[in-house]
């Protein structure tokens, strides 16, 4: 199943029998006399689809409080839309209800809002598979979101519209809506909407934007002029000045670098030399200390040698004395009891002699060592002196190199500051020239729309031709006279028959052609697998068959008379009934349906007469 099916439209109120209509899967015909509420039924459907805000004010409605519209959605989901007869928001119930349900319904808003999903419009568009679509409404690609309100002329065709001279495409009759209406028609016939279209500003907006841009650029230029000062240096001269400056200072940077490198090298060498000299001085100090210690040792050796001589001498004399008789007791030496002293003295004497020989040898070696150390010390001092001279020489060189480097650096600094001043002026000139170019570009930008900019409007001619063929086949099915001469006029967006516009025909012919248009749209969508609402309400398509005496539309025109003589009504209904599986069609009519179609359609009759069957849609207040 494609699209939505209406199941029932029921009015309820306290203390009154529910009144309403049931609808069949295929064709339903609501047939009755004038003033029995037939057109009220189509308006009530629009009210329940959220297209209108209120019901027409008729006497009978006052007794009813609630309206229930039963629907079957494409996924076989039965729902009921509830709305108070006073209007306002809806409630959605799952399942089919004709009176207040046990459970609470989901509140739905009447007004479409592309940012919300809790609206009747979203429910229905989503069921059709066209939620979120957009249609371009003007040459600048401003877009309108698709809503059930915008689609409604293709769903419910009122009695006024069906006979109107205006094109069934241009449903509003307002010229400013034409672009939108053509694009909506294109969307229905192609399934391609305009979401992808890029909205562009209007020419008037462009003009304002352009003036603003120019003003901004002018302001920037004025700022640069202010920076350049009152009597700015000439640009050409400034460039020349920069060229001369660069030429004169071409090798300044490298000379400065050389001078600095030289100075750095000298300082580095000086530092190294000082460090080397310090190390040498340290070594010389250590050497002096060693020599001093060795000299003391030498003195000790000399002293020791003399001491040893003295000990040898004293010992020798004492040893000689021990051989004598004891001076105290007169006993001979070998009888003396203190002989051990003599032995000790003798031994000490010998040891002293041996020690003296050792010391003499040590002394000779020490003398040699001291001599070599002293030679080294002398060499060191000589080196230290020469390092000192080297340091002095480097100091001199540094003193000489410094002023050269200073003067080079100063001139380099002068050069850099001069150059940056000149470059700044040149940069200002460059920016100013860029801005001037930009200003000219902006000035040259067109504010009017060029031909290619405007998007094409409406369906392309191929689609329109194919649609024309569908209209032709529908009218052929209906056995419409001259059906083979039917075309769809792309200028008027309406049907022509043998070159004659629909608008140029009588009311009844206009009505049947309008109905053919609406049926053809549905058929075209079905044949091309395009989304469509799934139901169509046609109010008085067979106006031609009216009774001139009782109809408010009066006498038949000539073409109506011709048409009335044909069997069109029967073929019309049979064709609509044949679409049963594809679309639900509800026809509201004044005149009797032909007997031949009574078995293929559900027919509801409003007699308009008290006591003769059903009087009308709603109960009459007694």
């Amino acid at each position, binding site marked *: 199943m494609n699209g939505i099916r209406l199941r029932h439209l029921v009015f309820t109120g306290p203390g009154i029998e529910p009144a309403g209509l049931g609808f069949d899967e295929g064709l339903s015909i609501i047939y009755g006399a004038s003033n029995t509420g037939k057109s009220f039924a189509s308006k009530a459907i629009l009210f329940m689809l959220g297209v209108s805000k209120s019901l027409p004010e008729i006497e009978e409605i006052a007794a009813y409080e609630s309206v229930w519209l039963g629907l079957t959605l494409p996924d076989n989901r039965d729902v009921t839309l509830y709305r108070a007869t006073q209007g306002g928001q809806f409630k959605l119930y799952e399942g089919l209800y004709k009176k207040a349900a046990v459970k609470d319904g989901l509140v739905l808003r009447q007004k479409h809002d592309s940012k919300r999903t809790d609206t009747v419009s979203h429910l229905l568009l989503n069921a059709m598979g066209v939620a979120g679509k957009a249609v371009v409404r003007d040459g600048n690609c401003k877009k309108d979101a698709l809503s059930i309100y915008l689609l409604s002329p293709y769903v419910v065709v009122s009695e006024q519209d069906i006979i109107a001279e205006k094109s069934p495409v241009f449903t509003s009759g307002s010229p400013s809506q034409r672009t939108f209406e053509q694009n909506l028609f294109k969307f229905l016939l192609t399934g391609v909407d305009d979401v992808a279209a890029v909205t562009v500003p209007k020419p008037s907006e462009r003009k304002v934007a352009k003036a603003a841009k120019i003003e901004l650029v002018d302001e920037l230029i004025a700022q640069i002029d202010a920076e350049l000062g009152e009597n700015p240096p000439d640009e050409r001269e400034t460039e020349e000045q920069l060229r001369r400056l660069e030429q004169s200072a071409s090798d300044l940077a490298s000379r400065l670098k050389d001078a600095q490198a030289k100075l750095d090298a000298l300082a580095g060498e000086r530092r190294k030399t000082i460090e080397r000299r310090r190390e040498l001085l340290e070594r010389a100090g250590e050497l002096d200390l060693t020599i001093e210690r060795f000299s*003391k040792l030498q003195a000790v050796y000399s002293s020791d040698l*003399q001491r040893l*001589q*003295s000990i040898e001498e*004293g010992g020798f004399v004492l040893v000689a004395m*021990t051989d004598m008789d004891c001076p105290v007791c007169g006993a001979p030496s070998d009888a003396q009891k203190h002989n051990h*002293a003599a032995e000790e003295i003798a031994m*000490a004497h010998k*040891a002293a002699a041996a*020690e003296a020989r050792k010391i003499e040898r040590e002394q000779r070696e020490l003398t040699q060592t001291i001599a070599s150390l002293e030679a080294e010390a002398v060499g060191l001092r000589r080196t230290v002196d020469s390092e000192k001279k080297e340091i002095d020489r480097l100091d001199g060189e540094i003193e000489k190199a410094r002023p050269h480097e200073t003067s080079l650096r100063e001139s380099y600094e002068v050069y850099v500051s001069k150059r940056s001043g000149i470059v700044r002026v040149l940069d200002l000139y460059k920016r100013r020239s860029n801005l001037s170019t930009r200003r000219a570009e902006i000035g040259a930008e067109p504010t009017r729309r060029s031909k290619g900019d405007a998007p094409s409007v409406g369906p392309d001619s191929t689609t329109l031709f194919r649609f024309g063929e569908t209209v032709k086949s529908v009218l052929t099915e209906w056995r419409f006279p001259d059906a083979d001469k039917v075309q769809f006029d792309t200028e008027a967006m309406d049907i022509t028959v043998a070159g004659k516009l629909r608008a140029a025909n009588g009311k009844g012919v206009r009505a049947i052609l309008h109905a053919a248009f609406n049926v053809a749209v549905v058929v075209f969508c079905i044949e091309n697998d395009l989304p469509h609402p799934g139901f169509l309400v046609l109010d008085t398509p067979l106006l031609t068959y009216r009774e001139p005496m009782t109809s408010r539309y009066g006498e038949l025109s000539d073409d109506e008379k011709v048409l009335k003589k044909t069997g069109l009504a029967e073929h019309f209904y049979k064709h609509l009934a044949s679409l049963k599986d594809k679309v639900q069609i509800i026809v509201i009519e004044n005149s009797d349906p032909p007997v031949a179609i009574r078995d293929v359609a559900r027919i509801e009759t409003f007699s308009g007469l008290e006591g003769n069957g059903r009087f009308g849609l709603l109960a009459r207040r007694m």
Partner: protein
Amino acid sequence: MLDKHPFNSTLETGIRALVVLEAFYPRHCDLMEMTWFDHLIVHTGDIDGQDVPESLHPDLPNRTGELLVRRQLVERSLRMMQQMHLVDVFETEAGIEFCASEEAPSYVELLQTPYSLALKERARWMAGRFAQQESVEIRELIESRIGRWTTEFTTDDTSSGRSA
């Protein structure tokens, strides 16, 4: 009782003591005085004065080894010289005192090496300086000049004094 090294042996110390006593003759000296003089005779430079002879031994920073010529060594040397009849020992009420014997001059006369002559010269200078002084006066001077070594003079047992 043999000395292993000639320096500061009882022989060398004995010769020094004898030279001192001969120069101080007839003054008697006790053991403490002899210990001081044994140091002073080779380190005359430790004493201030105009005519002070220079020290016979080099002033080394580490001469403590030499300075630890102590009381016991001096006493042993004096005892050895007494055995050789070169020193007379007097045991009196004031304690033990030493003096050069009659044999001493002829022995000392025989010592003629430069070092021995230098010893004799310094001993004579010391005698001129200290012979007339009381022991307490000498102590004062010693303590003021080389007082820091006092403990070393009075300590009996150290390694380099182990010659007995």
